[in-house]
């Protein structure tokens, strides 16, 4: 019986267990039937997340297909993460956070120039991580689409006002993703320091895969 609280509630055998350092990319292949748990180790750390079908990476996560299919913008326990061809890729089997974002996208050097000013162009950004990881497998800029931001909070007000606000996550909170097909997971552990998505202090997250 493990005493590691981050493994609590997981069944099966741990086949992969990694710490993603603050600001770093991560790429991993998760087989159909396996579960990926992401642990927000220190709290309020946005985990920018993309999925590709391992067999055919032109099929990939689609934020729009996912939210249209459930008629709701927020990703909660039970949400099916769908591909651009409408197929289930992963399911949020459990999460100790109320909801996660998929409309806020990923920070980039270029969008940072719009949001904060040109003085931020040289800062590290999620699209840099997505590119670095995807380039290892032959994917590139055309393969980067609207992503998920686990542990990030983007409310929409009645007048349409929208923004990244203080997180609803906390140290040790988790999301468990059940793979419905063989998927390639590409993550950017968000390095953003100009908005509250990481509490202005990027921190490590833990990735645990069970089979």
């Amino acid at each position, binding site marked *: 019986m493990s005493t590691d609280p981050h493994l609590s509630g997981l069944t099966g055998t741990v086949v992969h267990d990694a710490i993603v350092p603050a600001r770093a990319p991560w790429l991993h292949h998760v087989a159909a039937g396996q579960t990926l748990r992401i642990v927000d180790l220190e709290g309020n750390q946005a985990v920018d997340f993309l999925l590709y079908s391992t067999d055919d*990476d*032109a*099929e*990939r996560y*689609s*934020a*729009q*297909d996912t*939210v*249209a*299919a459930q*008629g*709701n*913008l*927020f990703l909660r326990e039970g949400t099916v993460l769908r591909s*651009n*061809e*409408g*197929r289930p890729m992963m399911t949020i089997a459990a999460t100790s956070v109320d*909801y996660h974002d998929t*409309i*806020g*996208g*990923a920070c*980039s*050097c*270029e*969008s*940072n*120039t*719009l*949001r904060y*000013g*040109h003085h931020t162009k040289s800062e590290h950004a999620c*699209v840099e991580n997505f590119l670095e990881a995807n380039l290892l497998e032959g994917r*590139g*800029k*055309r*393969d*980067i*689409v*609207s*992503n998920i931001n686990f542990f990030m909070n*983007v*409310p*929409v007000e*009645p*007048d*349409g*006002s*929208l*923004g*990244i606000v203080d997180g609803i996550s906390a140290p040790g909170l988790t999301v468990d993703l059940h793979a419905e097909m063989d998927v390639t997971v590409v993550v950017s552990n968000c390095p953003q320091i100009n908005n509250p998505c990481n509490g202005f202090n990027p921190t490590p997250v833990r990735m645990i895969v069970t089979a």
Partner: protein
Amino acid sequence: MTATLANPLAARDHARAMAGTVVDAMPVLPPVADDLPADVAAEDLLWEETIAAGGYATRRLKRGTRLRLIDVKGDACASLLLFNAEMTAERLNVADTVKVQWNAYLGQGKLLLSDMGRVLMSFIEDGAGTHDCFSGTSNAATNATKYGEGSNSGPFPSGRDRFLLGAAKYGLQRRDVHPCVNLFKGTAIAADGTIEPKIGPYEPGRALVLRAEMDVIVVIANCPHVLDPRDNWTVTPLRVTAWRGPVTPPDDPIRIATPEGLRAFQNVEDYFRR
């Protein structure tokens, strides 16, 4: 009929006899439009086409071009992809579009932003106000579930399949069909995240005008909105008109409306500094 077309010249004559046929949904060449704005010269008209219900169209537009869309009968849904025409790896980014503008809804004065921190097109007129950045479009599977059929070759083609064909005409691939925006059919977002479709049908003739801020390739699919609650596949033709116009000047009110938008225009101007 078979007998008279039994030789190539008869087939040629049969084909040529079709010339001059006019149908509801077709391009007009050279373009003619009797309802251009008063300050637009007839010789500046570039494109006049009515896209069929379930159809699509794609075109390269030069920086400064105005693109007017008219929901002729009140039930069109213009799903839109945008690419930088000279570097198609740069394309519309719906997440940046809503995040950078701090707002979920498109309309007059709003910008359609690329993934490179630049503005691809801006809304210089909007007579509709019901648009959608979130739901994307139908695909073969969703149409098959909803209408019993969803293929390009069947009666109920999907928006994604139309996008695939439209993008392919410019040499693009499946991986290039990116998240889209929907014009004329809208959504509102409730506090709990619920997506409330605004499908109409609306009064005929609602129009909007987009201004190309860069050289762009537009791909427009006119298929029912993916959250259209009606059981029947319902969509009506979409009229498209484009004319030449000047590049956005420094004092343009949309260019200077917000600090974020101004920087998007400055990034465009920097890109074209060559």
